[in-house]
């Protein structure tokens, strides 16, 4: 149902394929229909994903996937809006929208393809790159700290904050389904090896480090979630880090109480009576 004929432009062996396949399966298992979904992205390798799924697509500008997605959701909050884009796109160029849409708690699901590198532009550091990572721009290695996007999302109280890995498709699917099902802002950061430009954080590198967060972890406790979120190194937790229960943005908007915004009609008599105030 979600397959398309569009030619895929990713490198053979890229972790993105796993995200693509898993997403289609998750959508199917969630019993969603192509026309009920809007896939939104920015620009980058990851951002091409929407083109490879049979669904509504809004492939916008680098860094601006989130505001575009927010606009879609506000206009028609019955649509399932899923952002699937790169780590540079979401946390670099798009960092301000990341912060403020979590505050807004807009009801969208964000799947971040976290390859810790800028793929499409051929291998510069991403905000997620590990310190020391050398590139043609970062010739002496990265000296900035990692952005810690999960920590940010916990701090700001996203309703769903999780990490997964392309090498664990069962886990990835489970996370996708949970993220999409959760109301409010959901962030799923997916460790995704880039075989062409990230020779440091390879499949093997991730594979050796990831572990499933155990059931002890209290995902509703912010400080506990914070500690889990900042774990990174020899052990990298995957699973749900935090779950909140703030009401989704659209449920707080008065104008959307009775219908979607796209269905609202304008009554000229309302305008006529308002014009009286100007007399």
């Amino acid at each position, binding site marked *: 149902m979600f397959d398309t004929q569009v030619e895929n432009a990713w490198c053979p062996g890229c972790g993105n394929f796993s995200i693509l396949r898993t997403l289609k399966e998750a959508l199917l298992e969630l019993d969603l229909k192509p026309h009920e979904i809007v896939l939104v992205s920015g620009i980058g390798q990851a951002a091409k994903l929407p083109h490879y799924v049979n669904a509504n697509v809004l492939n916008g500008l680098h860094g601006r996937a989130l505001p575009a997605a927010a606009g879609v959701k506000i206009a028609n909050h019955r649509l399932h809006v899923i952002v699937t884009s790169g780590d540079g796109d979401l946390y670099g160029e798009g960092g301000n929208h990341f912060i403020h849409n979590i505050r807004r708690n807009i009801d969208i699901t964000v799947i971040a393809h976290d390859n810790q590198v800028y793929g499409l532009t051929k291998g510069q550091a991403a905000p997620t790159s590990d310190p020391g990572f050398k590139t043609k721009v970062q010739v002496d290695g990265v000296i900035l700290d990692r952005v810690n996007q999960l920590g940010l999302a916990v701090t700001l109280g996203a309703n769903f904050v999780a990490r997964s890995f392309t090498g664990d498709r069962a886990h990835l699917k489970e996370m996708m389904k949970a993220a999409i099902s959760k109301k409010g802002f959901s962030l799923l950061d997916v460790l995704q090896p880039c075989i062409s430009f990230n020779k440091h954080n390879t499949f093997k590198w991730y594979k050796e480090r990831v572990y499933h967060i155990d059931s002890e972890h209290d995902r509703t406790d912010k400080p506990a979630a914070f500690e889990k979120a900042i774990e990174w190194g020899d052990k990298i937790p995957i699973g749900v880090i935090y779950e909140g229960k703030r009401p989704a943005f659209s449920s707080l908007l008065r104008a959307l109480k009775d219908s979607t915004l796209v269905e609202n009609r304008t009554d000229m008599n*309302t*305008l006529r009576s308002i014009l009286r105030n100007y007399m």
Partner: protein
Amino acid sequence: MELNIRIAGAAGQGMQTIGYILSKVFSRGGHEVFSVMDYQSRVRGGHNYYQIRVSDRVITAKNDELDMLVALNKESIELEKSDIKDGGIIIYDGGANGEISYEKCQMCVSVPFAKIAVEAAGDKIYSNTAAVGAVLGFIGYDLEILYDVINKFFYHKKGAGVAKSNIDTARAGAKFAKKSDRKPAIEEMKCTRSEKMLINGNEAIALGALAAGCKFFCSYPMTPSTSIFVNAAKYSHEFNAVVEQAEDEMAAINMIIGASYAGVRSMTTTSGGGYCLMVEGIGFAAIAELPVVIVNSQRSGPSTGLPTRTEQGDLLFTINASHGDFLRVVLAPSSPRDAFYLTIKAFELADKYQLPVTILDDQYLADTYVTIDEFDLSGVSIDRHLMSDDELSGLDEYHRYAVTDSGISPRALPSQSRHVVVSDSDEHTSDGHLTEDIDAAMQMKHKRASKLKRLDEDMKPPDIFGDAAAKNVLLTWGSTFGVAHELLEQKKKDSISLVNIQEIWPLSGEFFEDFLKDKRCIAVEGNQSGQLAKLIRQISGIKVDTILKYDGRPFTLNYLEEKLKEKGVL
């Protein structure tokens, strides 16, 4: 009959309130009003004024020859008195400092605003209302209108108590004036009761957008555009509109693009600096063929410049903003009335041609209150130019960017049917998917450009005033029209005609090549480089002289007259 009043003082003294109330009173009394705000980029203090021109015939410009100065503080007298006409009037609160005199004036009268306020309502914050009462008392205007206006204004905002205190103070102010032995010699002002509207440019734009069915307003605050956003918020309940403050201007433009994609008429409002940040989004809307309406409320640049002042400095920027070639529409209303109808048209053109439309507003138009007839809504209807459900259900395949003769692809919305809608900022095939294919890309570039043909027919050509054969032609665009028009009406010179352009882009050169040929052409515009003059030469080859003003203040009748004389045209 004409009366030109300037109320001057510091920010925070409530000038805007009393300026508005006075304007409203005159308007309700059957007079034509033209009221301009002049303010600094601060919340308290500084020097600001509100100027109200009242007349019994249509007026469309600012005039710097004052009949009356109402000074709310001492500094204002010094700063403003040079603008007072011979035989003018100064009203001020002399307080302990005693009386002043000014040779040019027929009278300088001290009214103890604060004292009146304290006596009438127990608080000197009502001083400004005392001033209003006094002004109307001196000129003998119908005070019942004043009380009615005050009541309506304060009742809703602050409740009955505050309304009453204001009325009491106004009454006391008027009484003081009536009892004064000083009687100004001014032309009599006959009051009727009028049902005209008093409205400024930004209110008109907000109402125009609401009338056009705009349901999503998403902006980041920026003077002088903010009042459009605020006015939309004011009526958001009545219209079930969503008004959302974005985190920055990139967010604002991309949010409205997203909402437009999903089918909602959407608008963002900003000023130059914010418009800069939206420029990338405008290109996105263009290539994805998503209708959006953006208001760029111009202010004095470059950069932060004079942030609360007017300028028409963004014309060429707006027409050329964003990389690459693409079709866009730019509309520049010349008055609050035009602003209302052009805003409706902006949404219509955006939807019909599936492209971004920018409305070029400016601080002068934004904040200027004028008297106009009630908007005629009979011609207003909303056509979304969308495919019907029936049309869609009959289709096997839907291609969002199907190539058509008109260049316009039938538009469906996501979830409207089982067909998916694919939109992209990359160059794409007709089904919306990104492509590297030369032919597909060229087809899209040509498809989008080909819309110009039909669009050109929908663009209203420039308006001509006066004798088309006159050897001198003034050219105006946007808010500067009013001053040129009024001056020419006054002067009634056969040798000068006026061409005004509101629907300014795309603009065809043919008309100008014809009309301007062998004439003396002068663009009157509020910028430093003569942008309209450049544009006209670009499209027609015709060289256009300029009269420019770029000190952050609007053209005045006197200024324009003087400049035309310098040019030997008047």
